[in-house]
Structure formats: structure tokens, C-alpha cells
């Protein structure tokens, strides 16, 4: 049922997106591009959670890569050191990321402003240090080798097309979960906190509770992404979970726009495309090194913040809406005259 005047999920849009994801491997057959598309799916899961946290709970996390790393290492330890099934690893990836976020979020629910940003920044640095230094468990800077593949109904999900679909199945479930939350009582409560926290709590909204819940949810998303990353990569090391990675996740959300679920998806796709382009150009021109990527990210962040602070997706969609309503009013006027 359509409730006019209330933000609701556009299921046609979701359907089109699913279709694009489904046919992508048939159109793009180069294996390195498919590999990047699979990674994009993993990053989308992280940025979805981060987007919800930033755009709806109004909090910034500068340590999302740490939850991502916790998810990856939890499953690596469970499956490689203890020889358990990756599915049990998934439970640990989710539980440990969620628990850490809950402890942090619970203590900070009463605080507002940039406390969570600072705390997550510190958390990211601590997690990275632990991964490097706690050698008996994490195997130090060289990391884990021989992380097993995932089996589902006796079928091994190998790299390439199977893993691509596997990752994007999770990403699409993630998108649907986010859309469901955003377009619900909880989503409205979160949006109201964003506009006026005082009025929101006067209406009885438990602002701290929802902020904590969304923070935990964002950590769970990052944990699941870490799990997918670990079982795709065969090997993991602390270098994938640095502050740099957290900032790239942040760039994805800021570029796409955090006030929309699709913004996080768009931002992630664009940043990955930039990565691929820089790499490809780097093969042809020696002066373009991987450092060049960071210059591009920095430039993008500055330009987006100056020229479209809401991010790409909300800016484009409101521009399109204006165009459409202009056109419809023009045709109405024509009919009238």
C-alpha cells in the first residue's frame, strides 16, 4: 500500500539494481574486473552500515575498518586455527564486532557530537596494533594463510563468478535491511533526531538507544563484510585494516551521500571505479603510483563537501525530482490552456 507523503522503499528501483547485479558477470567477463566487482560488494556492506550511522544516527565512525578486521580475523582464527566451519566463523565475526560496538556505543550513548568519532579513531588504532602485536593469536604482521573456502549445501564457493554472486546476495540483503529500517518507525525516529534532538526526545524517542543500536548494526555489517573478505582472500594481514581503509569507507559514504541508502552504494561503486582507473593508468604511465589514489580521494572529498555537501545521490535525485515536477506542471499548464 502506498502511504502518500511518507518515504517508502521503491521496490522497482531495488529490482532494477538486482537485475544489474545479476547480468554484470555476463557483460563484463574480464576476471580482474569481476574480482573488483566482488570487492565492491564487500565494501558496499561496510559503507551501508556506515551510511546509516552517519546519515541517520548522525554519528561518525573513523574506525569502521577495525570492525571489518575483527570480522575477518574472528573467522580466520576459528576456521584456520581451530578448524571450525566458516559458518561458525560467521557467528563469531558478527558476535565479536557487535559486542565491541555495544560496549563502545553504550558508554557513549549519552554523549553527542564527535565523541564517537574520536573513540572509534582510537579503537581503529588499537585493533590494528593488536592484530600486529598479538602474534600467538593473530600471527602478527604476516597474517593468516590458508583460510578455507565456504561450503553451502556441499557446494564449494570458489573465486570468480560464484563468489561474486555470494557476496552480492549478502550486499542486497544488506540494502533491503537498511531500506526497511530507514522506511519504518525506527527510521523516522532517527531522522527526527537528526533534525531536532530535543523535539525528538520530547516525543518520547529514546535517542541514545537508537544511536547505539545503529552503531551495533553498522559493526555487524562490517563484521559480515570482514567474514566475506577473509574467505575470499585465502590470506589476510593487518595491512588491510588500517586507518586508511576506514577513511576510504568514509569517503565512499560522503561521496555517495549518507542521507540515502543508495548513496552508500553509489559512493562505493564510484570509489572502486576510481581505484581501478588509477591502477590501469598506473600500468601505462609510470608517474601514476598508488599514492595517486589518495590524492584523488582527498580531492573528491574536498570537492564534494564544498559543492554538494549532501553527497551525489541526494543531489542528483532531488535535481531529477525537480525536473520531473517541472515537466509535469508544464504539461498540466498546456492542458489547461
Amino acid at each position, binding site marked *: 500500500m502506498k*502511504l502518500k*507523503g*511518507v518515504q517508502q522503499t521503491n521496490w522497482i528501483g531495488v529490482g532494477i539494481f538486482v537485475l544489474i547485479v545479476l547480468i554484470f558477470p555476463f557483460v563484463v567477463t574480464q576476471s580482474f574486473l569481476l574480482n573488483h566487482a566482488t570487492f565492491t560488494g564487500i565494501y558496499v556492506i561496510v559503507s551501508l552500515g556506515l551510511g546509516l550511522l552517519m546519515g541517520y544516527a548522525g554519528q561518525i565512525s573513523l574506525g569502521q575498518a577495525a570492525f571489518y578486521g575483527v570480522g575477518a580475523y574472528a573467522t580466520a582464527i576459528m576456521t584456520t586455527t581451530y578448524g571450525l566451519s566458516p559458518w561458525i566463523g560467521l557467528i563469531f565475526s558478527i558476535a565479536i564486532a557487535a559486542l565491541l560496538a555495544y560496549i563502545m556505543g553504550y558508554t557513549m550513548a549519552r554523549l553527542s557530537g564527535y565523541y564517537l568519532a574520536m573513540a572509534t579513531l582510537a579503537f581503529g588504532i588499537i585493533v590494528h596494533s593488536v592484530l600486529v602485536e598479538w602474534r600467538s593469536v593473530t600471527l602478527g604482521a604476516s597474517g593468516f594463510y590458508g583460510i578455507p573456502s565456504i561450503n553451502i549445501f556441499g557446494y564449494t564457493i570458489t573465486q570468480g563468478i560464484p563468489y561474486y554472486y555470494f557476496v552480492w546476495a549478502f550486499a542486497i540483503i544488506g540494502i533491503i535491511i537498511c531500506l*526497511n529500517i530507514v522506511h519504518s518507525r*525506527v527510521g523516522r525516529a532517527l531522522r527526527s533526531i537528526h533534525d531536532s534532538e530535543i523535539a525528538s*526526545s*520530547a516525543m*518520547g524517542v529514546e535517542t541514545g538507544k537508537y544511536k547505539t543500536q545503529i552503531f551495533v548494526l553498522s559493526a555487524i555489517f562490517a563484521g559480515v563484510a570482514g567474514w566475506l573478505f577473509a574467505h575470499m582472500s585465502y590470506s589476510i594481514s593487518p595491512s588491510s585494516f588500517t586507518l586508511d581503509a576506514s577513511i576510504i569507507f568514509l569517503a565512499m559514504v560522503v561521496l555517495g551521500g549518507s542521507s540515502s541508502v543508495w548513496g552508500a552504494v553509489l559512493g562505493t561503486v564510484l570509489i572502486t571505479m576510481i581505484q581501478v582507473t588509477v591502477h590501469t593508468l598506473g600500468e601505462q604511465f609510470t608517474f601514476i603510483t598508488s599514492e595517486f589514489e589518495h590524492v584523488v580521494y582527498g580531492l573528491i572529498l574536498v570537492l564534494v563537501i564544498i559543492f554538494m555537501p549532501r553527497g551525489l545521490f541526494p543531489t542528483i535525485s532531488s535535481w531529477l525530482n525537480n525536473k520531473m515536477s517541472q515537466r509535469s506542471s508544464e504539461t498540466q499548464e498546456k492542458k489547461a490552456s
Partner: protein
Amino acid sequence: MLEVKNVTKTFGGVVANKDVSFSFEEGQIVGLIGPNGAGKSTMFNMISAIFPPSEGEIIFRKQRIDKMPTNAMAPLGISRTFQNLQVFKNMTVVENVMVGRHIRTKTGTLRAALKLPGTKKEEVSAYDKAMEYIQFVGLQDLYDHLAGNLALGKLRLLELARALATEPKLLLLDEIAAGLNHKETKEMSNLIEKIRNNGTTVFVVEHDMDLVMSICDKIIVLDQGEKIAEGTPREIQSNQRVITAYLGAEVEKNAQ
């Protein structure tokens, strides 16, 4: 219904309210008036638990509320509007009022995420209920407009609808008529009387004397943080301390 007992509020060295006590019963429209800086808004903020009093007690329906968090007020039955307009401006009119239905609905994050059975039904009923309140205040033509695009008079009505959507027992209106023209003020006072007649007690802070004198059953007067009078509109209008407070000591001197 509401009892304010020896409430004092200081901000640093500034005394906003000093040893104020009053109480009123259900089913009335009660006015809180006083010159600028009398401490009216401070009193309202304490009754709606935006901040606690420095000393004293606030009791609502036999329950002490002065140490409770802000979000505990709406479930108890206290709702309010804001003088400086705290609408959710990036949300539509109906979405704003649906936030008012927050405490009357219960879909949590997990249920919402998985769209479990029943969530849709609750959403539709919250929507329908919100539309009733929008109709009540007369905003039905604007229900799908973004709140940020509304004119001031409409925003005041929207705040009223949102506060009513929580189904309060006590409704606090903080200068609800400020900035309204004569016609809008008249409509607003009609609405407030209607709300009282529907069984909700209304407590208003107001500068518009015509409005206060015409609709209030009881008036409490603050001046420089202290209560100086309490009574019916007729009693207040003839109270010498109130006249002095409003018109200044010189008038009193001239009169003598």
C-alpha cells in the same frame, strides 16, 4: 494533576526561578504569564524534563518527574510544543506527526529490518492516526509537504498536531500564538478550547493577553523568577502586583 513544589532554578549565578509553587487540576486551560525574563520558559522546560530543577519537586499525577529523562515524559502523558519551533524540517507534515505516534507504536529495529508480520499494519494505522490529527488542526491540504517549506502559522499548527499525536494528558504550549496574525490567533484559541473539551489539560505560556484572558480557566503570574499572583483571569486583571510588574513602578507612582 500537576504540582510544582518550591522549585528553584539557577544557571550559574543567575536565578531563573526562585521558590515557585503552584498546582492545578485536570480539565483546565491554565496560563503562565509574566514579563520577558520572568522565567516562564525555564519553568516549562523543567516540567517537560528538558532539564531538572536545582531545588524543589515537580509531581505529575502523584509521580515525581523532576529527575526523569526527557523521553520519559511523553509515555507518562506530557507533551509539548516549542516557542522556537522544533519541527523536523527534512520530513513531511505527515511524517512529523507520525513521530508523535512513536510511543503509541512499537516496531523495533530488528522487527523493522526484517519487516516481520504486523509492521506494515502498524505503519498504516500510525499513518491513519497521524492524518486524523492533521485534519484536526486543519493541515490536510499540506500533509505531504516538506515541513521546512511551511509558513510560520502552519508550523505552529504542525507542532500542535505532533504533540497531540502522543495522546497527552497534559499539553504544554510554549507561546503557540507568537508571530500569528489576528485570524490565526483566533483559530488557535478555538483549537485549544476544543482540546480541553476533549479532555486534555492545557498549560500555556503566552504573551498574547487577549488569548490568555479569553481562554484560560486559571492564570499563574511570574515576575523575575518568582510567583506573584495566581487566580482567574478576572482576579489577575485587577491584581495590583501584576499591573505593576507589567507596566512598571512609574505607573503606580503616577496613579498615586
